[in-house]
């Protein structure tokens, strides 16, 4: 500990740079995957021209985005306009820090890792609000308010659901949680928690069927309507980073993370994460969208009580089983 602290900060900076790169690559891959999956589901072929079977399509898109002109509405608040995307993207990347990709491959084994994972994305709300407000545009503003309201509302049942895992593992450290699942993954012990986690996570990262904040049909493009070029890319990146983080974290919390036969842990984790990601995409292109009021009612009147009941029941059962 004595020596490690300054080193940790240095390592953290390094990790941060690496992570950003990785996340960029991941986003490219995920976007491509999503387009292909959606095409598959909708009976299309998807991007085909750039690279073999369109494999380089998103790389090209990214280059285009980075090179585009940075447009800012005349009456927008410059500081907030710039700060918004950053505050959205950075926490999304930061939350990856506690995910154990395998025995050595965890950026930092915080002894409050799980809590950290839940807390850090909360900062993105500030970014959403700023972005929506700074654009000086009603669609953006409403989109920003809706996003943050939705985020805050679903954060509560999500956290309460994760608490059951923490209770079972007896630790807030993600590594310890993995350790505890060595014999049985928690999805077996806590199926309802897993379900709640998946649904609330989808809502928190604003994906269909909970993508109300950026519902094209009514809000154009939500809080990032006025954004373009690199800043818009940051939002895009943050969205997929969040999607990936939620899936990976779900894999860690409920599916036993990197544990599995034969293959190295990283691969196992990648496989499990990929499954969850695929399910997310599948849902996106299958289910219709909720209305704004239904969304909030669902959060406060269904998921919050459900997560509370789940928590109490889990605690009672744990007590009854006796460990």
């Amino acid at each position, binding site marked *: 500990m004595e020596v490690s602290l300054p080193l940790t*900060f240095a390592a953290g900076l390094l990790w941060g740079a690496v992570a950003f790169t990785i996340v960029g690559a991941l986003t490219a891959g995920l976007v491509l995957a999503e387009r292909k999956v959606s095409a598959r589901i909708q009976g299309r072929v998807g991007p085909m021209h750039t690279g073999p079977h369109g494999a380089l399509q998103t790389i090209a898109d990214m280059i285009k985005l980075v090179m585009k002109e940075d447009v800012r509405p005349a009456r927008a608040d410059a500081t907030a306009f710039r700060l918004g995307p950053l505050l959205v993207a950075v926490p999304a990347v930061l939350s990856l820090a506690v995910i154990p990709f395998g025995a050595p491959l965890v950026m930092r084994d915080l002894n409050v890792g799980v809590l950290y994972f839940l807390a850090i994305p*909360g900062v993105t709300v500030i970014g959403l609000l700023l972005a929506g407000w700074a654009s000086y545009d009603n669609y953006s503003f409403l989109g920003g308010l809706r996003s943050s309201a939705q985020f805050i509302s679903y954060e509560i049942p999500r956290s309460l659901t994760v608490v059951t895992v923490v209770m079972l593992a007896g630790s807030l450290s993600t590594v310890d949680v993995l350790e505890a699942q060595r014999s049985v993954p928690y999805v077996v012990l806590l199926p309802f928690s897993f379900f709640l986690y998946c649904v609330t996570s989808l809502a928190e990262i604003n994906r269909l069927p909970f993508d109300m904040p950026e519902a094209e049909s009514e809000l154009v493009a939500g809080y990032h309507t006025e954004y373009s070029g690199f800043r818009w890319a940051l939002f895009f990146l943050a969205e997929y980073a969040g999607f990936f983080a939620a899936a990976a974290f779900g894999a860690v919390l409920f599916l036993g993370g990197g544990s599995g036969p034969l293959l190295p842990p990283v691969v196992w984790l990648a496989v499990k994460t990929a499954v969850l990601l695929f399910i997310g995409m599948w849902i996106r292109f299958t289910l219709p969208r909720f209305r704004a009021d239904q969304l909030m009612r669902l959060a406060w009147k269904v998921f919050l009580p459900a997560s509370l009941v789940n928590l109490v029941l889990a605690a009672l059962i744990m007590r009854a089983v006796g460990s």
Partner: protein
Amino acid sequence: MSEPQNVEQLLFIAFGIVAAGGALYAVVTRSLLRSIIALGAFLTAVAGEFYLLAADFLAVVQIFVYVGGIVVLMLFALMLSASGVRHPLAAIDRPALGAALAYSLGAGVLWGSLTTELPAVGELPADAVDALGRALLGSQLWSFELIGVILLASVITALVIVRKERR
């Protein structure tokens, strides 16, 4: 365990400067929005201080509750009450009086803290989060329960205050 390392102290001071700067900016700026963002920065810096003080849990809670909760709440309030969003705030009012009082209070507190005899330094427990959890549900249960009650009361109060009157 002795006094913590010098590097940590330096980091502590660095975070402290960020925190104080953020706080100062939050207090003097004429844009309410920037004031709140500066508050967010200040709070994050304080979270860093907590981390340096071996209070990891506190640091994360600080982010969770303050940055993710209170700052967002303030932004909401700011945006829902349109005043002050687009218009600059009134200038600092009665700066001399404020400065004099703030200075004397701060100096008094500082002097008082520095001249107080403090007990010997103890040992940091191996698992601080574990110890904190046991304290919260053990010796300090009363405060834990109390804060729960206060939170409930304030939730209800806030709802009652904000709800629109029925016609």
